[in-house]
């Protein structure tokens, strides 16, 4: 029972927070990639709008995927990537 609860809390947390982190990573990265072919303000706004659809997809997937480890790797990994890109970007430049 307790184990079931723990799995549910992890899953909901991954869907909401992990899903957001993953989407943010996708937005930041896509905005950067698209800026090669678009004016960069256009690249960023397009990427950010698409981010909501990415978030929709991954947060639904978080409820469907049975293996929590996969979720941790993909959504947790995406969140770490977002944190690195947002936190460290100015130093990289």
């Amino acid at each position, binding site marked *: 029972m307790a184990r079931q609860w723990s799995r549910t809390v992890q899953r909901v947390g991954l869907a*909401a927070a992990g899903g957001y982190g993953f989407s*943010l990573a996708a*937005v*930041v*990265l896509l*905005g*950067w990639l*698209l*800026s090669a072919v*678009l*004016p*960069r*303000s*256009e*690249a*960023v*706004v*397009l*990427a*950010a*709008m698409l*981010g*909501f*659809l990415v*978030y*929709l997809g991954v*947060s*639904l997937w978080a*409820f*469907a995927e*049975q293996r929590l480890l996969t979720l941790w790797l993909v959504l947790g990994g995406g969140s770490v990537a*977002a944190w690195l*890109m*947002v936190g460290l*970007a*100015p130093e*990289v*430049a």
Partner: protein
Amino acid sequence: MVASWRESMRWQHTWVGVVLGALLFAIFWMGTLSVFDKEIDRWMMPATRLAPPESVALQSAVASARQVAPDSPRWRFMLPTSRAPQVRLYHPDADGRLQSVDLDPRTGRPLPEQGTLAGSGFIFPFHFSLHLKAGQLGYWLVGLAGMAMLTLLVSGLVVHRKPIRDLFTFRPHKRLGRANLDLHNLTGVVGLPFHFIMTLSGLIIFVNIYFPDAAALAYDDTADPQGTFLEEGLGRFNRPPAGEPGSLASLDIMLSRARAEWSGEGPAFIRVWHPGDAASYVEMRRSNQNMVRINRDQIYFDGGTGEVLYRFEAKPLMKTQRFIAGLHFIQFEHWPLRWLYFGGGLSGCVMIVTGFIFWLQARRKRHGRQGAVRVVEGLTVGSVTGLILATVAFFIANRLLPLEARWAGYERAALEVWVFFLVWLGAFVHGWLQGSNAWRGQCWAIAGLAVGAVALNAVTTGDHLLKTLAEGYWPVAGMDLVLLAGAALAAWCARRLTQRQTAGSGEVDFG
């Protein structure tokens, strides 16, 4: 695999729906009313029940601004539209808080203070910020609910899996449980495109709040990536004050110049930056009345000479973002569409309520009246009929409080808001105490108060329904008619609940 996928979506749909349904209902309800926020303003602010003006006395409006807010760093004049006939002046006070005063468009003189936040000041911001001012907590809660709504729409489609059949199925005379689920599926499927687009566009409006770091990599060579992105994407002009007094050239001449550049269309607002300073400048933003897009077309004039300093028009993708925002804001003129939006919003409210009732009925059979069922029942009553009741009580308070009302340090506008929240709180308490019986009581209360609001409008303003209908004054006549229709619906619900002596049915009851 497919079965477990559907099973996981069923689990998601059930629990995300139950946990966030109350919040979603509040957002949908306030959003539905916001479709007519300006009309609610007219009803709640009788001094602004004016005919839309032919032209605006701009110089007199500026003179009024000099009197009302002589030391303000900026004045923003919202110009009249067909739905809002007054000039509304916004100005930050000494503490930086935005104040507003309504001006008569023909004379430029301030209209009598109405002491209300009304539709555009209370109901509309409630829809997207919940009036939670701590940080941007309200925005983020609404954003979370919005994302959850998108997932619920998709998972709902997976769970119900017969969308075409649902489209043609409504059996109101079957037992309540069946009729309720039919209604949930029907509103869900018919409204699906509308609900999906409205939810997604609502999120996209605040894309800069929800993805505040979107520009981190693309603009990593700038000190402030997001700020630079917004400046490039949305257009900003800045000039610090000179610290010396200066004069303001004729706004009318600047206005006609802007009109000439915008193929005859005027601005939505005129903003004077650093009024009275030698470095003052005037910003004009193109009107949204004739296009879907909430546009960012801007012209800046030098305050002293009237010369054009800066022009801006957004690029295509940013225009797309503003178009999607405009789909949601519906600031353009289109009455049939406005009513369709209203109906679409109500269908969303019905979808949420019937979802709740389905959950309650399924559990009540299994668990009787204890525990979680009881909590959710109280929550549902308070957040559905309770919210509607609070809204109508807000209208009643608006008509009952005298203009000079003030109590315990609160201004009149704040008192109205207090009435709203106290009635809402009372409805939750009533719901928890009475359980499913509370539906009936609150439906009767809604019906009584809604009729009372129509009567009070007639008594306190003289604009009774016969008069407004005869004159074709639709903002007030429409509001009264919707209140009466809502009262009839609420009374019908209450009667049906009495006959059946069972739990609530989910028919629309709006005030």
